[in-house]
């Protein structure tokens, strides 16, 4: 479980000071948890703070009982992995070498047979086997995104945090990506936390939804509770109706 306790963060942006929190919420172990909300609600900020890419001003975050501020970063790297939306990539790197970086917490760059096996599993899991020897700059944006997700899966951590993994992906690849993430949660027993923009993707693939607005958590719970016209209207400040679709509840907002 990830416990977020009265976490607060202030930072300056072009439009003035932005304040996140105080946020208190729990992210349950297992399954897929989606963070949703309007732009600027603080979803990505909260996710990157849990992933220790961004410091916290006040409060505490615990992942599986380890306080992220006081636990050594190299130990956390075996419990928690985090992937940002945009990643700097170097050209002379193949997909397999990139995925190999996910094993750094275990082998410090000297790949063992076990590491190679984990790398192959992650590559196969994201259907990258035909691309594994290609250089990153020879891939499309969507393929590169999959390669990065394979890297964090190869890291073999219980918790996997992904900031907008569907960014730049078309409909087919978005569906495949979410399907693989749900499989990672169900088959591999990972806890996957994703920031999503599309509420309908969250409704279909996630098990839990945390809705944020103006730097605070306004609703959190199982999908069935959040997928409610009145709740979503309040979160997104725009009229939303929830109808029963062929595969589950659908939010209609246009």
């Amino acid at each position, binding site marked *: 479980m990830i416990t977020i306790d009265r976490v607060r963060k202030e930072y300056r942006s072009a439009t003035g000071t932005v304040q996140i929190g105080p946020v208190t919420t729990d992210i349950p172990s297992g399954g897929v948890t989606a963070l949703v909300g309007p732009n600027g609600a603080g979803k990505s900020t909260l996710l990157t703070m849990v992933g220790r890419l961004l410091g916290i001003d006040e409060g505490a975050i615990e992942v599986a009982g380890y306080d992220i501020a006081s636990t050594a970063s190299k130990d*956390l790297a075996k419990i928690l992995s985090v*992937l940002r939306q945009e990643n*700097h990539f170097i050209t002379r790197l193949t997909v397999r070498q990139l995925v190999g970086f996910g094993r750094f917490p275990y082998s410090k760059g000297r790949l063992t047979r076990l590491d190679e096996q984990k790398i192959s599993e992650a590559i196969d899991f994201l259907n990258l086997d035909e691309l594994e020897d290609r250089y990153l700059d020879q891939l499309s944006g969507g393929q590169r995104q999959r390669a990065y997700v394979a890297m964090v899966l190869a890291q073999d951590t219980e918790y996997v945090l992904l900031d907008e993994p569907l960014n730049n992906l078309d409909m087919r690849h978005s569906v495949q990506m979410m399907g693989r993430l749900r499989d990672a949660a169900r088959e591999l027993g990972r806890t996957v936390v994703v920031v999503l923009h599309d509420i309908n993707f969250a409704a279909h693939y996630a098990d839990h939804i945390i809705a944020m607005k103006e730097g605070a958590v306004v609703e959190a719970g199982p999908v069935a509770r959040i997928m409610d016209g009145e709740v979503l209207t309040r979160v997104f400040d725009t009229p939303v109706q929830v109808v029963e679709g062929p595969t589950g509840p659908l939010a209609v907002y246009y």
Partner: protein
Amino acid sequence: MRVTSLVVMAVVAICQAVATITFQTVTNNRIITPSIMGFESLYTVIQTAAVYTLGVAGVVALQGPGQFLAQVAAMVGLSVLLYGWLLRGRYANIQVMLLVGIIMGGGLGAVSTFMQRLLSPSEFDVLSARLFGSVTNASAEYLPFAIPLVIVATTLIWLNARTLNVIAMGRDVCINVGVDHGRQTIYSLVLVSVLMAVSTALVGPMTFFGFLVATLTYQLAGTHDHRRLLPLGALTGFVVLAGAYFVMNHVFYAQGVVSIIIELVGGTVFLVVIMRKGRL
């Protein structure tokens, strides 16, 4: 004499190649060189100030192992101060550090130019010979001090090569796999500054040599792995430097202008790379 020159070339090649590749990895930028961090300007200021205050005797006063080590220490001290100040704390940012480094370099350069204006022509002549990087500037008595420093710094960088591979991926990936990005950055930059200081104090400024060698190395190696890039870079540096000296001394019989040629070629490659990439 020849053996000394070859050893000096090897030391300079290793220093410049390893320092530039490491610097470019840590700053995530393949078109800058550690020279812009003010090493050369500081060297120029020290040399100019010595001639300015002591006249031609100043050049002599700066020779000797003690003075060599003092210059290395001053240059390393300056950069450690800069990194320690600008890479820690809340708004720590490598871009700000580079900018401050460039501005300090510019400021020190202006101070040197001012002092050079006030020199007599003969003093200026003596000084300018010291301000062009040249293997003949180095005297054999510095080598027993320079070589151990270079061996220690390159060994430490080499042992860290696998971590450098991760640092090249950027801060977020670093933290994700548990590498302390801030500490590793400062550690690598301090080692870079030792190498640059030794090279500059030994032979004088060589602005584009490191850049030229690093760019060639990336083309030749075709890999991201620093365990290959670093040794290949050192070899490339030696070939470029020794090759340039051979051509200038034995084909054109023009001694002493070698670094000018390297700077010319290096500067041209620099422009071509910028034009082709179309961005910084």
